[in-house]
């Protein structure tokens, strides 16, 4: 920490700027990001000869600030009608920006993409991290809730759980990580006595709930890993990276650490954590010692390890260090400095995982699973990732279905890690040449499905299941369906036309059923009344002769059943709701009719 308080840090934002205006102020956009390096950077920009060399000599933070300043000057030049030297300066900024991209080996990638569904995005994220969050009840479907009621549960054989019959599980099965757990999910559903028919109508969220429960260890869990520790796609990539490019990476990290006064033990421990667990976050990593110390021998003895013959100062074998890390016992060999203080990773930067092809674009270009392939990942220095690679991200709405995008891509597709600007800060490798990967790719191809088609299939199944189990549609269910139509609508019309027909049929049928029910109830009521009336008439007839003329009128008049005010209001609401539903369908699809 710097030692200054938050108030001091933000002081410049709380007070009015009273500092002297620099002479070059007129060249810069008035609303720009304040940088402590501005004066130094402007010195270079006002004398830009040999820019590439000057830029490469800067520290990473200064390079990032230079990139931002140039981008802001360039934008300013485009938006304002600058004149004279100010205009030339802004044009020059654009040229210098190109120089930076040449050093970084990056270029702009611009185009149009079609949005993918939220469910698909969720699956990409879940597969990448290997975790699933607790679902809230409003995210689950009424069908899933119905089949989870104790009275609707039962016993079925494992064979009845044919996951291929589930349209939405087929969406999951596009990813290797979910294919791996298919058997577990089948067994769990059987164990819980969930009707196999539920598979046909379960949504992505419903399956998330099943996976969450199947892998939940404690009732307090709100997030669960459905893959073993260190086996998520993300962790596996980092492990493979270290296996293939670990030496080069470690060399770069040691150079960087030496320049910043960081102990090599810290770098070594980060590399160990990356290699064994796929962890890239240096904070709280236990820094392990290179050699045995009296304290380490003491700690190992206490923990029951045989330390006979081990001498103080002899190196700790890598295999033993790995063994202790894998068994979470690395604290036994913690590294200490000369004064006996524990060495930490303070100041050491880790790398972040970056998806080379944005999720949306990758989905556009190929199949969904491809997004999480090793060739689509790259490890980036934290600051470089945020302040350079993502700095140029732009999305512009084109129409409801398509959007323009702009982002930065790395030209050399073999680069697997970038620790800063320049080729000498990059690590390259091809991770898609292994037999294991080829097998995964071939299998993935076999499981590719179209999300919209699968959703349409599921919604068709809902009609069948609703009829079979007499699950009446509710207002909530209809609202959900309409939302789904809205979401599908943006994609292929022909894919969903068939579904819409079915859905409208279903609605009509449900409405007809309701009408029939009402009519039957009314008929029964009328029959009852007429029966009552007949018997009443008979009674009246027989009594007619005996009754005096003045009493006749009040006995004969039939009683019409009167609806209460609440009943009438409910009927009005229902009619209004139906009107809205039908008008919505009519406006969206041109089917049915408009109700005034």
């Amino acid at each position: 920490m710097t030692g200054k308080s938050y108030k001091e840090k933000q002081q410049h934002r709380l007070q009015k700027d009273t500092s002297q205006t620099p002479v070059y102020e007129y060249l810069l956009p008035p609303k720009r990001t304040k940088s402590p390096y501005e004066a130094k950077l402007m010195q270079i920009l006002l004398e830009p000869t040999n820019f590439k060399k000057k830029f490469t000599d800067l520290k990473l933070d200064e390079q990032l600030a230079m990139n931002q300043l140039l981008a802001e000057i360039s934008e300013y030049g485009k938006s304002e009608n600058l004149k004279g030297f100010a205009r030339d300066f802004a044009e020059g900024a654009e040229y210098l920006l190109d120089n930076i991209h040449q050093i970084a080996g990056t270029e702009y990638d611009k185009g149009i993409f079609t949005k993918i569904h939220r469910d698909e995005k969720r699956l990409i994220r879940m597969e990448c991290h290997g975790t699933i969050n607790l679902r809230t009840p409003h995210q689950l479907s009424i069908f899933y809730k119905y089949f989870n009621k104790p009275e609707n549960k039962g016993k079925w054989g494992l064979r009845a759980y044919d996951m291929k019959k589930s349209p939405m599980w087929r969406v999951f099965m596009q990813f290797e990580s979910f294919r791996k757990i298919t058997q577990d999910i089948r067994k769990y559903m059987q164990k819980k006595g969930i009707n196999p028919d539920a598979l046909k109508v379960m949504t992505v969220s419903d399956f998330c709930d099943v996976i969450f429960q199947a892998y939940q260890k404690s009732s307090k869990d709100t997030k669960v890993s459905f893959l073993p520790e260190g086996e998520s796609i993300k962790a596996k990539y980092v492990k493979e990276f270290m296996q293939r490019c670990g030496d080069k990476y470690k060399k770069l990290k040691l150079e960087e650490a030496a320049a910043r006064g960081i102990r090599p033990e810290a770098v070594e421990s980060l590399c160990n954590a990356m290699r064994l667990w796929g962890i890239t976050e240096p904070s709280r990593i236990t820094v392990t010692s290179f050699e045995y110390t009296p304290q380490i021998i003491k700690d190992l003895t206490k923990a029951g390890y045989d330390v006979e013959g081990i001498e103080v100062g002899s190196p700790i074998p890598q295999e033993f260090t790995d063994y202790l890390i894998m068994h979470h016992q690395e604290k036994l060999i913690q590294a200490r400095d000369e004064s006996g203080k524990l060495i930490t990773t303070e100041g050491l930067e880790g790398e972040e995982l970056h998806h080379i092809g944005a999720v949306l674009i990758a989905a556009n270009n190929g199949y969904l699973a491809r997004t999480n392939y090793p060739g689509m990942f790259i490890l980036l220095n934290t600051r470089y990732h945020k302040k350079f690679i993502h700095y140029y991200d732009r999305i512009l709405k084109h129409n409801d279905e398509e959007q323009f995008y702009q982002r930065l891509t790395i030209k050399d597709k073999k680069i697997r890690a970038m620790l800063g600007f320049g080729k000498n800060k990059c690590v390259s490798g091809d991770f898609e040449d292994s037999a294991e990967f080829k097998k995964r790719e071939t299998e993935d191809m076999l499981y590719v499905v179209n999300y919209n088609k699968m959703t349409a299939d599921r919604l068709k199944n809902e009609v069948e299941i609703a009829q079979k189990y007499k699950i009446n549609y509710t207002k909530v269910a209809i609202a959900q369906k309409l939302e789904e139509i809205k979401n599908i609508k943006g994609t292929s019309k022909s894919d969903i036309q068939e579904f819409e027909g079915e859905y409208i049929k279903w609605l009509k049928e449900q409405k007809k059923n309701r009408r029939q029910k009402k009519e039957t109830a009314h008929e029964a009521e009328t029959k009852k009344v007429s029966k009552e009336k007949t018997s009443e008439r008979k009674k009246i007839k027989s009594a007619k002769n005996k009754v005096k003329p003045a009493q006749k009128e009040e006995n004969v008049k039939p009683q019409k059943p009167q609806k209460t005010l609440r009943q009438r209001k409910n009927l009005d609401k229902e009619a209004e709701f139906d009107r809205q539903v039908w008008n919505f369908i009519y406006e969206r699809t041109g089917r049915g009719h408009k109700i005034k």
Partner: protein
Amino acid sequence: MKNFLQYLKGKSYKEGEPLEKEAVIVAQKVLCNMGLDFVPASYVAFLKHHNGMKANGCYLFGATVDDDLDIIDQNENMPRPQNVLLLGYNEFDYLGYDYVHKKYQIIDREDFEVLDSYADDELGAALNEIFEV
């Protein structure tokens, strides 16, 4: 939120200095001056436990001197959807607070699509969704 705090136990992450009352006041003042809104009360309650956190490319902002975690710096520098105060992000999504509808949101970083919404008392679920350790 309790469950999320429980989940963090034994996990590896870096966090900002303990939260000071004055820092919250400064953050609220500056954010409002920037045309944004107050940090929601439930999030401030979380900051009392962890004043900003980062791990493996996941960030939760706080009123802290650490530039990467400073809620003001991040809201100033990152592309942001309208009427949303950014509270954190990961490789894919933002955690934002829609101060018009008073909801926490998980927002796609690429196209600003709202993937999930959570009420004020569901902050724990939202934090769970954004912070992967």
